[in-house]
C-alpha cells in the first residue's frame, strides 16, 4: 500500500533539473579546464563553463527569491532530532527491507540526514565554489580590488576542492535517489512532484 504526498512544487522541480543539468555540465567543462581530459578544447570549455556559471547564478537568484518568499527555506533548517534512527536505517534497516523511519510531509520533506547534507552544501561546498569561482572570473580586477597579492593557485585549488566535493555529493545523491520504495520512486517524484510513500502499518 502506498500513499501520495505532493512534495515538490513546479518551480522547485524546474530549479532542481535545471540546476542538475548545469552542475553536470560545469563539472564536465570544469575538469577539462583543470586539464583532466580534452573534450571541447580548452578555449571552448572556458567559454561554456563561464556561460553555465552565470546561468546558475541567474537560476539561484530566482531560487533564493522563491525560497525566501514562500518560506520553503524552512525545509533546510538543520536538526539532529532522530538522526541516529535515520542513520541506522541506511546502515542496516534498509537491508532488512524495513520501512523508512522518516515520513516526509509537504511541510517537512527532508529527513535529518538530508538537512545536514544540504547544510554542508550550503555553508561549505557552495561558498567554496562560488567565492573561488567569482574570483576566478574577475581575475583581471584583483589588483583594482586590492587583491593583487592573492595567488591564483590558492583560488584555483579552492575551486578544485569544491568541484571534487560537488562530484562526491553528486555520486551520493544519485545513489540515494534509488533508495525509495522502488528504484525510480524518488526520480518520479522529482518529475511529477508526487512522492509515493509506503503507508506505515498500524
Amino acid at each position: 500500500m502506498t500513499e501520495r504526498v505532493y512534495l515538490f512544487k513546479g518551480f522547485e522541480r524546474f530549479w532542481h533539473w535545471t540546476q542538475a543539468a548545469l552542475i553536470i555540465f560545469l563539472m564536465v567543462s570544469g575538469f577539462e579546464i583543470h586539464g583532466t581530459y580534452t573534450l571541447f578544447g580548452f578555449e571552448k570549455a572556458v567559454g561554456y563553463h563561464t556561460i553555465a556559471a552565470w546561468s546558475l547564478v541567474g537560476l539561484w537568484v530566482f531560487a533564493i527569491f522563491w525560497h525566501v518568499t514562500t518560506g520553503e527555506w524552512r525545509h533546510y533548517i538543520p536538526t539532529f532530532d532522530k538522526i541516529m534512527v535515520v542513520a541506522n536505517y541506511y546502515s542496516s534497516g534498509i537491508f532488512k527491507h524495513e520501512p523508512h523511519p522518516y515520513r516526509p510531509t509537504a511541510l517537512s520533506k527532508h529527513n535529518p540526514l538530508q538537512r545536514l547534507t544540504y547544510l554542508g552544501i550550503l555553508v561549505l561546498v557552495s561558498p567554496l565554489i562560488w567565492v573561488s569561482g567569482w574570483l576566478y572570473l574577475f581575475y583581471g580586477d584583483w589588483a583594482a580590488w586590492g587583491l593583487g597579492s592573492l595567488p591564483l593557485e590558492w583560488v584555483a585549488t579552492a575551486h578544485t576542492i569544491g568541484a571534487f566535493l560537488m562530484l562526491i555529493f553528486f555520486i551520493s545523491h544519485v545513489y540515494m535517489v534509488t533508495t525509495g520504495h522502488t528504484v525510480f520512486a524518488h526520480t518520479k517524484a522529482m518529475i511529477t512532484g508526487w512522492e509515493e510513500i509506503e503507508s506505515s502499518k498500524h
Partner: protein
Amino acid sequence: MMQMPNRFVLMACLAGWMGFSALGLAQAQDPKPVKLNTTADHSKFKELQREFATGPEVTKACLSCHTEAAGQIHRTKHWKWEYKNPDTGQLLGKKNVVNNFCISIASNEAACNSCHIGYGWKDASFDFKSEENVDCVVCHDTTGNYKKPSGLAGNVVTKDMEFPAGSGKILKAIDLSKIAQKVGKSSRDTCGACHFNGGGGDGVKHGDMDSSLAAPEKSVDVHMDASGLDFTCGTCHKTSSHDVAGSRYTPTAKDAKGGAHLRGASDNGNPATCVSCHSNVPHKQDARLNQHATKLACQTCHIPEFARGGIATKMNWDWSTAGQRDAKGEHIVRKDAKGHITYESRKGDFVLAENVKPVYVWFNGQVNYTLKTDKLDASADVTRINTLGGSPTDGKSMIWPIKRFGGKQPYDTVNMTLLTPHTAGNDDTGYWKNLEWDKALQAGVKVSGVPYSGQFAFIKTQMDWPITHMVAPKEKALGCVACHAQNGRLAGLTGIYMPGSHTNALLDKLGWGLVLLTLLGVLGHGAIRIISRGKTQGASK
C-alpha cells in the same frame, strides 16, 4: 533596324578613343613618377646640383639649410654608439659592450662602423664633434643606391676603387649628386640597411628583423604589410629631433597604466610600444584577453614565432671551433642543405633556424650587461652577456618572448674577463685573415683596453633579445592551448598558475581518491541491498 548595331560600334569606338585621349592627357599633367611625401623637391635645390667628391661634402650642403640637424644627431645613440643606462649606471652602446656575435667593435671599426651614421670612424681619433662627419644620406636615401662598404669606416666610394688593395675586387662608385637630389624620409630600406643585417648578415642577430620586413606579407608583419597598413619603422619608432624612440638598453617592458598615449607628448613615455597605440585594454570582444594583458606582453601571444619571413636567424655561434683549415691549408666553409653557412674557419660553428618559438621570461625592462671589466664566474653554467631583470612579483614585469642566443667566445683564464679579438681587417693580426687567436687578441685588447694575460680559453655565453617585431595578424596569434596545456609554452616559468597546465598532484590524488571511495561505497551499499532483497524475498516465500 539593321543600322543599330553599327551605330553602337561607332559609339563604342568613340568612347574608347575619348578614354585613351583622357589617359594621355592625365599622363601629360602628371610628370612625377613617384608620390612625393615631402613639401620639398630636393632636385630643385641649387646646393645639390653639383658633383660631390665625398660624403662630408654632401653633409655640408644639407647643413646649409638644415642648420641644426647635425647637432641633433650628435646627441643620439645612432651617433655616439654610447649610452649610459640611468638605472644601472652601466656605460653601454656599441662602443662599449661585448656581445657573442662579432664580439666587439674595438679594433674592428673600419668594418663594423660602416653602419655608423657618420663618415670616417676608423679608430679612437674620430671627431664626434664634427658636423660634416654626420652621414645624413644613409637614413634619407630613397634611391637604394647609397652604399657604405665594410672596411671603409663608413665612407662612401665616389671613384671606382680596388678594395682590399691588391684583391682585384672593385668597389663601384656611387653618384652622390643624384642620390642627394632624391633624399626623403627614412624608410624600411634605410633603417634595414643596418638593422636587418645586425650581427653581420641578413637576420643574423635579432630574429625578428630581417630583409623580409622590407616589403613583408601580412602574415609576417601585420603593420608593415606592404599591401596593407604599410608601416615604416618610423611609424612606431616615432622620431623627434632625430632621436629615434625605442631602446634595447632601456626597453619599456610594461607601459604605465592608462590608455593609449598621446604620441609625441614628451611626458608620455615610449611611443614605440604596442600600448602607445592599442592601450592596455586592446581586446574589444573578449575581456579575458585583456586580463591576460595585465601579465603578458602583447608580443607574447602576437608574435608566435620569429624569423618567419623565410630568412634564418643565428641561434648559436661557437667561436671555439674556428681556425680549422682543409688539407691544402685553406679556409673552410660548410653549408647545410638550405645553403646556410654552418661552419666557417674564420668564425666557427653556427646553428641557424627559421620560425623559431621564443623562450619566455619575466622582464621588467632592466638589462644588465657583462662588461669588459666584469669578472666572470667560471663555475656558472653559462655567462650571461646580458641579464634581463624581472620577477613575477615586482609589479613591473611582464612575460616576454625572447630570442636566447648562445655562443662560445674567448676569455682570459687568468684575469677572468671577456676578450675582444681583432677580427676584421686586411692585416697580419686580423683573425679572419690569419686564424691566429693570440695575435688577434693582442691586437684587439690594445684598442679595447681589456687586460690580457696571454692565457685564453672559450667560455659558454648567452644573450637574450626581447622579441617585438614581426607581429602576426590576430588570427595567427597564439591560442589558449599554446600555454594552457601540459608542457605548454610557459612551462617552467615561475610565479604563474595556469589552469590546464599546472595541477597540484596531491590535490588530484586526494580528490579522485575520495571520488573513487564514494563510488565504491554506494556500489557496495547497493550490492548489499540487492543481495538482502533476494534473501528477504526468499524468506517471505
